[in-house]
C-alpha cells in the first residue's frame, strides 16, 4: 500500500515529537507521527506498578555497556506518548550557567544559544500545558520570567519533615515547578495526589502528551500511525535532501513514507541509531555525521538518594511522584569543595510498595517483611540529581547483531567519570547531614550501583558541522530538511530534570521550522 506524501514525518510520538506535531499541524502542515509501539489511551493507564510496565520499552533492545550502564528500560517509553506518558513531570529549567560551561570553566561545551533564547519558550510551554509552581521564589537563582499559570502543588509531611534539616544546612527550598494541575486548568481537573503519576496519569491532571500537544495535534489533523518501526531515513541520489523514511508496519510489512521534512524524535539512543543506519555512499558514516559525532557525548544524571526513617507517620503514600520542594543552591558548578558539576536538590514525593522494598534492596525474608511494615509509615527520601560532563567515549553505535527487521541493534556505552563519582559522593554525604538535622531516627545512603537518570546527547547542537550534529533548532548542519528533536540535542545536561527544556526547545525548533518552511521545501 502506497501512502500519500506528507509535509512532515515525525519519528516518535513522545515529548518532543508531539510538540512538533502540534505546532506544525496548527500551521497547516500535513503531519504524520510514526511510533513503534501501541497507541495508548488514558483508559489504558491502570493504577498499578505491575500493569504500569506495559508502557516501558519493548521491541529491539539497546545493548547496554560501560561501567555505569544506562537504566534504559526503566527510563524510556514505548508507544504513543513515549517516556512522557509515565514521566514524573518535574519541570525545573536549566540555568544560564549551563549554556556556558566551556566559556566559564573550560570544560564540556558551550551551547550555541543562551538561557535568554530559551526563556520565552519556557514561559510559552508553561502557558500552553500548565505548570504549577512559584516562579518568584525560583528567581533567587534565575532571571525573572512570567509567573506560572497555577499556584504550587500541595505539600505533605513526607516533604515538610525535611525542611528543618535543609534550613540547618543553609539550603533554601522552594515549591517545585511541575507539569501538573494544582487547580483545574483548561478543562483538565486538579491533581488528586494519589501518587500514580509514574504509571501514567489517566485523570488528565498531569501534562502527558495525550492531554496536551498530541491532543492538539490530532485536533489540527495530524495522523498517528502506531506499531510503525522506522529503520532508515531515505535521501535523494545526491544525498542533499531527505525524502522520507522506510518503516515496518503493524503487519511487519516494509513501507516507504515520503515526506518533505523528517524529524527524528525517537529519544537520545534511537535517533543516532537511525542516523547511523541510514548511511549511503554520499553519507558513508551515517546521515548528518560529517563531524563523526553522531552517537557521541551521551549523558545521564546520577542520583544521590538519601532515605530516612522518622518517628512519626510521614504519610508517604500521599502526594505525587514529582517532588514537592527543590533547590538550586548547589547548582553552581563548584558548589562542593574540589568537585565539579551542578547538583539539583529535591524533597518530598509519594512512594509505592516497590519503592519501599527498593529503599533497602539488601533485605529479604522476615527482615524485609518487618521493614516493609515500618517503612509504610515512617520512610521518606530526598534526592540530589548530579551533572556529568559530556564525554566522547559515552556513545551509541551500531552492533553487529540485528533486530527482527534486520536493523543493527544499538549499543549504548556509558561510564561516569571521576568528577561525577566525586559529586555523587558529595551529594550523598550532604544528604545524610540533612537527614540528621531533620531529626531522622535512622538514615542511609542508597549506595551500590550508581543510579542513572535521563538520557541526553548523541546528536548535540553546536555552531557548525565540525563540532556538532545539529544547530540550536535541531536542524542538521548538512541536510536542511532533516531535523532532530529531544534531549539528544543538549550539548551539556545541567543537573535539573530535562523535560521542561525538551518541550521548550521543541517549541522553539518547531516554530522555526514553520517560519522557514519555504527554505526547507525548495
Amino acid at each position, binding site marked *: 500500500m502506497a501512502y500519500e506524501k506528507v509535509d512532515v514525518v515525525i519519528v516518535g510520538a513522545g515529548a518532543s515529537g508531539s510538540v512538533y506535531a502540534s505546532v506544525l499541524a496548527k500551521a497547516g502542515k500535513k503531519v504524520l507521527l510514526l511510533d513503534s509501539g501501541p497507541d495508548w489511551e488514558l483508559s489504558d493507564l491502570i493504577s498499578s506498578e505491575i500493569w504500569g510496565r506495559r508502557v516501558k520499552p519493548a521491541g529491539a533492545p539497546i545493548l547496554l555497556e560501560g561501567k555505569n550502564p544506562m537504566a534504559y528500560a526503566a527510563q524510556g517509553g514505548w508507544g504513543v506518548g513515549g517516556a512522557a506518558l509515565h514521566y514524573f513531570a518535574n519541570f525545573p529549567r536549566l540555568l544560564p550557567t549551563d549554556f556556558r560551561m566551556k566559556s566559564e570553566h573550560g570544560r564540556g561545551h558551550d551551547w550555541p544559544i543562551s538561557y535568554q533564547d530559551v526563556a520565552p519558550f519556557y514561559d510559552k510551554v508553561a502557558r500552553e500545558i500548565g505548570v504549577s509552581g512559584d516562579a518568584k521564589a525560583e528567581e533567587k537563582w534565575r532571571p525573572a520570567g512570567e509567573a506560572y499559570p497555577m499556584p504550587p502543588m500541595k505539600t505533605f509531611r513526607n516533604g515538610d519533615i525535611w525542611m528543618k534539616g535543609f534550613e540547618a544546612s543553609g539550603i533554601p527550598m522552594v515549591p517545585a515547578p511541575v507539569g501538573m494541575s494544582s487547580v483545574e486548568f483548561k478543562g483538565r481537573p486538579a491533581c488528586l495526589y494519589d501518587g500514580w503519576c509514574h504509571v501514567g496519569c*489517566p485523570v488528565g491532571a498531569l501534562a502527558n502528551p495525550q492531554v496536551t500537544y498530541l491532543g492538539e495535534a490530532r485536533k489540527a489533523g495530524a495522523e498517528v500511525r502506531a506499531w510503525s518501526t522506522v529503520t532508515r531515513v531515505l535521501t535523494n541520489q545526491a544525498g542533499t535532501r531527505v525524502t522520507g523514511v522506510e518503516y515496518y508496519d503493524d503487519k511487519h510489512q516494509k513501507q516507504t513514507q515520503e515526506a518533505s521534512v523528517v524529524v527524528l524524535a525517537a529519544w537520545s539512543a534511537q535517533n543516532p541509531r537511525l542516523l547511523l543506519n541510514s548511511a549511503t555512499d554520499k553519507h558513508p558514516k551515517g546521515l548528518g555525521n560529517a563531524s563523526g559525532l553522531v552517537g557521541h557525548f551521551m549523558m545521564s544524571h546520577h542520583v544521590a538518594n538519601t532515605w530516612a526513617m522518622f518517628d512519626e507517620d510521614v504519610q508517604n503514600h500521599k502526594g505525587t511522584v514529582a517532588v514537592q520542594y527543590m533547590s538550586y543552591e548547589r547548582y553552581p558548578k563548584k558548589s562542593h569543595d574540589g568537585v565539579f558539576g551542578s547538583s539539583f536538590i529535591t524533597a518530598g514525593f509519594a512512594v509505592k510498595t516497590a519503592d519501599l522494598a527498593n529503599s533497602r534492596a539488601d533485605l529479604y525474608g522476615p527482615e524485609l517483611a518487618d521493614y516493609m511494615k515500618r517503612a509504610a509509615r515512617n520512610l521518606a527520601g530526598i534526592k540530589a540529581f548530579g551533572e556529568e560532563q559530556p564525554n566522547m567515549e559515552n556513545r551509541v553505535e551500531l552492533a553487529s547483531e540485528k533486530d527482527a527487521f534486520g536493523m543493527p541493534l544499538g549499543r549504548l556505552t556509558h561510564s561516569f567519570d571521576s568528577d561525577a563519582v566525586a559529586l555523587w559522593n558529595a551529594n550523598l554525604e550532604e544528604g545524610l547531614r540533612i537527614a540528621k538535622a531533620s531529626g531522622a531516627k535512622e538514615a542511609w545512603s542508597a549506595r551500590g550501583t550508581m543510579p542513572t537518570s535521563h538520557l541526553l546527547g548523541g546528536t548535540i547542537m553546536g555552531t557548525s558541522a565540525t563540532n556538532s550534529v545539529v544547530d540550536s533548532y535541531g536542524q542538521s548542519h548538512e541536510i536542511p530538511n532533516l531535523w532532530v528533536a529531544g534531549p539528544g540535542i543538549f550539548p551539556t545536561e545541567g543537573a535539573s530534570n530535562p523535560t521542561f527544556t525538551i518541550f521548550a526547545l521543541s517549541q522553539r525548533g518547531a516554530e522555526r521550522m514553520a517560519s522557514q518552511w519555504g527554505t526547507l521545501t525548495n
Partner: protein
Amino acid sequence: MANIGRRGFVKGATLGVLAFTVGGVEVIMAPGEARARNVPFRLLDAHQAETLESLGETLVPQAREAGIAHYIDQQLSVPPHEALLQARIFNVRPPFADFYRTAIISVDESSRRMFGRDFAQLSATDQREFVGRMRQNKIEGWTGRPGAAVYGVLRADAVDVVYGTMEGYEALGIPYMAHIPPEKRW
C-alpha cells in the same frame, strides 16, 4: 475532557487481569487463586515451579501462597511486549524464559555443590544462607547471570505478588487510591 472523571472513574476493563488456562478454557484470576486451584503451569515444569516458589518464599514471605510461580509462568507465556515482569525494567533481554530457566539451573547447581541437594529441598535456614550469598555474588563456581541479578529480579517478582497488589497494600495499611483500579484487586 468530559469523559475524564475522578478517582476510580473507570474499571480496568479486561486489561487488569491475568488469563490462566483451566480445562482448556481461559479463566481470569489472580495468581494466588490460580495456585490455590492448582491450575496447570503453561511453561514451567514441576521442579522449576517448586524452585521458584522456594526462592520467592525465601526472598519475601508469603510469595508462595501469593502465586509467584503461577505469576511468572503466565507472564512467560505472553509476548515480551505484554509482559509485566520486572525483568523488563531490569534490561533482561527477551525471551524472559531464558533468564528464569538459566537462573534455576545456576541455583540448583550451586545448591548441590554447597549442600548436596537442590535448592527447594534445603532447610529454610540453608535457603536463607544461600540467598544471602547469591545476593553478594559470593557463591563459588556460580555460572550464568550474576547472582545479584538473579536476586534482584526474583526479589522484585516476589515483592510484586506479595506487596504490589491491592491486597498487599491493604496488608500494610496503605490506602491504594487507584485512578483506574486493576481488576480482581490484582
